[in-house]
């Protein structure tokens, strides 16, 4: 990704976030009638897409306030009243509350561990030339490329031998290990792009390598760290395969697992109102995190495409 070149355009025209900036031309080269039609068609396509995205989510929210009878009656009927008992049932009877707590604990621990280990490793890989560095980088990319399904069987037995199967610490270890390559991969390019002069200055001022990292480099890397942390949070919160394989004890289920087992409970006794309520409960935390940090994330997604 190249730096955004200022191409000599006068800064009078602020293109804003919507597209490339350019000088104001002296006149549109095309007739504006057809042009407006195209513009309207573009808007139409985007509106249609937005409806497609939002409709299932809104419908889920609406259904979460309906009794199961109301849900069976019609997909469109509005809830007669806000049936919050769906949320209560999901939270207590279906155990979503406990699973939620498990998810918070596991994801928090794994996120902190991943960010600490990942940033340290990325820093060394970015700035310390040593024999075999290329091999280490290749192995980290390999971890991103190979299907996790190839590893799940041996991983199951590794955790079993370590006595960590069906425990939250074991799950934290697995989450951390599988988020590590992505984190390192992403942060290496970030540390490479940080100016070397500052580290030089710190060294001249007598700071050791350790202190340079924690007091100089890490604060400078904050934008990149934040972006990776958000992406990792979403990824860890949504993790499904690892807990299903490594964590079969119902008491230590995480939220995604709990939702899956709730949805697949045998027969037709599923409380659909509570199922929708559980879905909303699972979505809201990530959606809130995303909306709070979305500006930062939008920027980082583009950065993430950088190889």
């Amino acid at each position, binding site marked *: *990704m190249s730096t955004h070149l200022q191409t000599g355009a006068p800064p009078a025209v602020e293109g804003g976030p919507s597209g*490339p900036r350019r000088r104001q031309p002296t006149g549109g080269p095309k007739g504006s009638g057809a042009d407006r039609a195209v513009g309207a068609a573009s808007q139409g396509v985007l509106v249609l897409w937005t409806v497609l995205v*939002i409709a299932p989510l809104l419908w889920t929210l609406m259904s979460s306030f309906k009794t199961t009878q109301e849900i069976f009656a019609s*997909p469109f009927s509005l809830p007669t009243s806000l049936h919050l008992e769906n949320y209560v049932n999901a939270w207590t009877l279906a155990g979503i509350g406990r699973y939620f707590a498990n998810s918070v604990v596991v994801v928090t621990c794994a996120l902190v561990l991943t960010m600490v280990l990942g940033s340290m490793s990325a820093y060394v890989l970015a700035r310390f*030339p040593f024999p075999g560095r290329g091999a280490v980088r290749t192995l980290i990319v390999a971890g991103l490329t190979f299907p996790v399904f190839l590893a799940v069987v041996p991983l199951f037995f590794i955790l079993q031998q370590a006595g960590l199967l069906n425990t939250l610490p074991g799950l934290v270890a697995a989450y951390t290990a599988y988020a590590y390559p992505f984190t390192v991969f992403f942060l290496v390019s970030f540390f490479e792009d940080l100016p070397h002069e500052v580290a030089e200055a710190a060294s001249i001022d007598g700071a050791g*390598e350790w202190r340079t990292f924690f007091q100089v480099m890490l604060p400078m890397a904050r934008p990149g760290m934040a972006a990776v942390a958000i992406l990792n949070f979403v990824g860890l919160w949504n993790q499904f395969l690892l807990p299903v394989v490594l964590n079969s004890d119902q008491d230590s289920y995480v939220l*995604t697992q709990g939702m899956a087992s709730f949805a697949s409970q045998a027969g037709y006794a599923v409380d659909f109102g509570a199922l929708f309520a559980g879905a909303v409960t699972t979505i809201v935390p990530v959606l809130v995190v995303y909306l709070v940090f*979305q500006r930062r994330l939008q920027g980082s997604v583009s950065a993430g495409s950088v190889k």
Partner: protein
Amino acid sequence: MAGAVAAGRRRRGASSSTPSPAPSRPGARGRRLSFDRVSLMVVFLGLPFAFYVVMVLYPFTQATYYSVTAWTGFSPEQPFVGLDNYVRLAGDAQFLNSLGNSLTLLVVVPAVTLVLSFALACVLTFGGSTAGAVRGLRGTAFYRVVSFFPYVVPAIVIGIIWSQVYNPSNGLLNGLLVGVGLDGFTDFAWLGQASTAMAATIAVIVWAFVGFYMVLFVAAIQNIDPELFEAARLDGAGRVRTALSIALPGIAGSVRTAYVYMGILALDAFVYMQALNPTGGPESSTLVVTQQVFTTAFAQGQFGIACAMGVVLAVVTLVFVGLVFGVARLLGVRGGARA
């Protein structure tokens, strides 16, 4: 990356009108091996990397070894059987069916997702009026934020929601279709018929990822030199021509990366399948390799065969990644998205 940094600095009000010069390599400092440096390297890279090797890389090699044994997991011995497992798989109709389904996903899902993402990204960045500046549409920021929603929803929940949307009797989809007068769709079982189950599943995965890649492509398109768009406009290029001749080559690196990620995801697809059709769908029409690995290992305890399936999946993945990079090189795509 530098672009994002510069953008960050711009937001904080510092000027970044001149790109910073390339960092100079530090001199003697980069060479000295002091205790300080070595200890940092060991703790920062050595220990975490060792942990990663044990938890991630070692299992990959272990699985490859298990795949040539007839290990059942219940007995300590792991009899070596050579390529027997692979021979069995090659003659196993159910496995070949699931492999075919996975390959279908691999061919269809990335192509459909990325074409839609690219089209939407183009509409957002230069689909606006051609009078005045080359620009996108009003409300771009809103569209970007909303399109990203499905990406942050846990995949299992996406599956659960859509299995309800597809619900024959009280789902949103049939409700809409019958509502507009298409009575033929009353109680139509989208996920319950071999003719529609796979297409319905693909639609869900596409829905989940189009927004994410749209946002990525929008960012990449905005990094193309605006002068190029102006030149194209002055030469009389229409929007489609601009998209194909300016935008697409300009973000080829991003498209390649996205294609690889999307392909790896399509070959997995485990979560979506488990949520929409846990048993493999009508006539096993949506059964995929990852589901086979899972049931073979953890329901039937045939770890040797399951690992062989995993190896087949890994080989397919690597061939796919190699193909994407090879085709990209033939087309002259430059490394990464640094274009």
